[in-house]
């Protein structure tokens, strides 16, 4: 559906994206994930037609679209700050694109009402000025305005970043459901790894304008292709040389001794697991942080400070200073 072919974007002397190659499938929820300034929004704006690449080609639906103006690419976009027109009502905002296309008034009203119902906006809200709506409602208006023209692609530039945590979780579910319902190809930009993991069909992880890995959320999380992806997505224990030596000695002999080694927090158990091969290492509890459904333990072990997630309700809690045994599956160690 969408293809970035050797896309390069420069701003004066600065190369924001050196060479981008990506493909997004029809109906896919595709996320561009990365820290601030990594080039993900630049890539999205290039796809939208707001930035002209200095080299390469963008294909939409198999056709070259690099030279097409944004309004001819059949893309709808939801901006980070929603970009709602403050001088217009909610209905006028949603109908703006239809008005530009000189759609008949009755048809405009019908389409606006239809999309408003889909994004759960009431008729009272349609009559209001956009400033009278809450952040979540404004976000719905922005989505409705982008979708009312029935674009082939929906672009979302960190649309949840201005909302509070609870609303963000609620809206990301609704957004995903809406996308699934409409089957629209969606490109989503975020720096929030949790958002990316929970919503996406596939994720492209950006770093300094370069895509480090493209894959499903599971692939990105469990089989991170690069050290950057491993450390950027999810929390990690970085293992020291001394710890690795002990781990190899205790049963992880297949692990390379001279590589950077990482272990996810949930891959460290403080009680012997019922299944799976694991090796034991000893340590001392340094700290425990209670987090409701689970606790995060910090254990000093062989020169490493290891964190472990332990669900509530087990035989623990252990107190600081207590001896602890770590159970680790060597195959869970990621090395780069």
């Amino acid at each position: 559906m969408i293809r970035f072919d050797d896309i390069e974007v420069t701003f004066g002397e600065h190369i924001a994206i050196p060479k981008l190659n990506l493909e997004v499938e029809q109906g896919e929820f595709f996320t561009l994930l990365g820290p601030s300034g990594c080039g993900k929004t630049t890539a999205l704006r290039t796809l939208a037609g707001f930035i002209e690449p200095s080299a390469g080609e963008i294909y939409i639906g198999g056709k070259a679209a690099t030279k097409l103006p944004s309004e001819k690419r059949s893309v709808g976009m939801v901006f980070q700050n929603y970009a709602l027109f403050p001088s217009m009502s909610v209905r006028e905002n949603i109908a703006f694109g239809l008005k530009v296309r000189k759609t008949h008034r009755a048809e405009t009203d019908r389409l606006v009402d239809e999309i408003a119902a889909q994004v759960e906006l009431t008729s009272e809200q349609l009559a209001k000025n956009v400033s009278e709506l809450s952040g979540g409602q404004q976000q719905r208006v922005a989505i409705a305005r982008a979708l009312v023209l029935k674009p082939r692609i929906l672009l979302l530039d960190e649309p949840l970043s201005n909302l509070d945590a609870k609303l963000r979780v609620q809206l990301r579910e609704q957004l995903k459901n809406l996308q699934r319902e409409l089957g629209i190809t969606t490109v989503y930009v975020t720096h929030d790894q949790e958002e990316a993991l929970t919503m996406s069909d596939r994720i492209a992880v950006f770093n300094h304008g370069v895509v480090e890995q493209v894959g499903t959320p599971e692939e990105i999380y469990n089989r991170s292709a690069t050290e950057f992806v491993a450390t950027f997505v999810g929390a990690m224990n970085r293992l020291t040389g001394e710890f690795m030596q002990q781990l190899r000695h205790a049963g992880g002999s297949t692990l390379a001794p001279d590589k950077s080694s990482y272990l996810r927090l949930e891959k460290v158990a403080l009680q012997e697991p019922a299944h799976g091969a694991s090796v034991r290492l000893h340590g001392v509890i340094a700290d425990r942080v209670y987090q409701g459904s689970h606790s995060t333990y910090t254990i000093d072990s062989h020169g490493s400070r290891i964190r472990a997630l332990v669900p509530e309700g087990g035989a623990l809690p252990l107190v600081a200073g207590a001896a602890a045994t770590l159970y680790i599956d060597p195959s869970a160690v990621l090395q780069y």
Partner: protein
Amino acid sequence: MRNSSWRAMLRSPLVVIVLVVLVWFIATFLVLPNANLLISTFFPDGKLSFRALEKLISSERALKSLWHSFALAATLAVTVNVVGIFIVLVTDYFKIRGSRVLWLGYATTLIYGGIVLAAGYNFIYGKNGFITNAALNVFPDIDPNWFSGYFAVVVVMTLATTTNHMLFLGSSLAKIDYQTIEAARNMGASTWRILWRIVLPALRPMIFAVTVLTFLTGLGALTAPLVLGGTDFQTIAPMILTFSKSSGSRDLAALLAIILGLATIVLLAMMNRVEKSGTYFSVAKVATPLQKQPIRNPLANVLVHVAAYVLFVVYALPVLLIVLFSFLESTAISTGTITWDSFTLANYATVFGTPSVLKPFVVSVVYSALASLIVVLGMLFVARVFQKHRNPVTTLLEYLLHIPWILPTILIALALVMTFDRPNPLIGGQVLTGTTVLLLVAYVIVKIPFTLRLLKAAFASVPESLEDAARILGAGPLFTLRTVLVPLVLPTAAAITALNFNSLLDDYDTAVFLYHPLYEPLGLAIRASTEGENNLDAMSITFVYTVLLMIIMGFTMWLVYGRGGARGRRGVRRGTRRAGAGAGPGAAAAPVAVPVPAAAVATVSPAPTPAPRA
């Protein structure tokens, strides 16, 4: 702001039209007249000549006027700071009972300045003035001319030019992080030590800026020396006016205007340099709003209260008397004997019922309205082009449009008179001097920098994502401009129009050089009323004019700043810039933008709007 090559810019026919008109306007009305002034002064016969300079050196009057101007400017730099800082402190920093009322009294200069203010003081304190006459009844030996010359000019201009302090210094004061004051107090610092070591140093750049503005105002003062200076105290500007009337001394007038312009440029450059030299305001991530400070020493508290209210009376009395006198028979004012029978509406009836008396008022309203509308309409397009297309061409044009900010109005007016007194091919071979058009052109010119700067800020405050959103929804540039951008900048444009209108209404400085004899503006009529010995009817009519002006200006200020109640008033007092109506959803519903020029504006404006006029 977007970068855009000039080639990309020229793809739009609308932009091309705007640029062509702009280049013509800049060349014809901004560059040519001022270049012509320089050439006619130093190359009168096509060869370099210092004849004008020699004339200046040999003219005692001219040299004296130069000395007087610099002496006045230096004096004002001190007196205006003393009064202005005091006013800001008692209204915004110290806990003073009735500070809002005090603020209203001090703010009278916002609606009352220039020739009107000078004439008002003359009618009250000058020879034949009400107070002077009343005093003469008690002390027959006092000099009836006691309120004239250097002293009178300094007093009037000191009171008239504290407006800058109220607007800009008040704004700076509001930006001080209150936690720095609390921290100082926590370490045992007294009220005065905090003021001296924490507050005033933080205000230093703004104090410097307003000092420069004050100095420039003093240097270029026209109306106050003209009305109150008498024969012994004339400054550069009145001299320029006098010399420009004769063709034999026009080169001298031009040279004096150039000296005034040079001094302005040097001082503004100095001010820019100082302004860039450091951070004085809060470095806190979350600054705490300033809270008013009690004066803990009871004696000091009483003294400050007394001084604040005495000053209030000084400010408010002329305004109150003018309103009162506008309802009095002229003989009652001159004799100083007021009874209930003296009150009359005859003065108002004369103004509204006599076409010839009302005419100056109408002429000024028409000129001000036309100029304000033209400049805002024109700059709407220009600001949009400058904001959207940032490249060396637009940067150069923008700099050139700021010429009226670095040159005194008198110089601009004189340059226009001297350039368009013969057929000029750039204006289709027409002569503009002596026509009604030239004054309108001058009004448009002098309002360009202020208008452009604020409209550009208004456009810049509209998030780019709004334009992107319109574009991705299929809207073209004109449709986006009409439906998305203009509604957002309209409140700012309306506010600028109102402020421009206000500041031109009682103009004298420009009009005196460029007016058409058959269409004499209000400033000239008021000035005429101050001349002669016993022009009592003219005086009464001037009082009515003044009251009408104050009503219009007060109403305009309320429209621009006051709507929205206390928030609006804080806007004026703190100079907060909400020029960005439309910075986000709902911004259009915000009150009218408050384009009070802050320090940035002050840096390049010898007379920002609203400006003290004296």
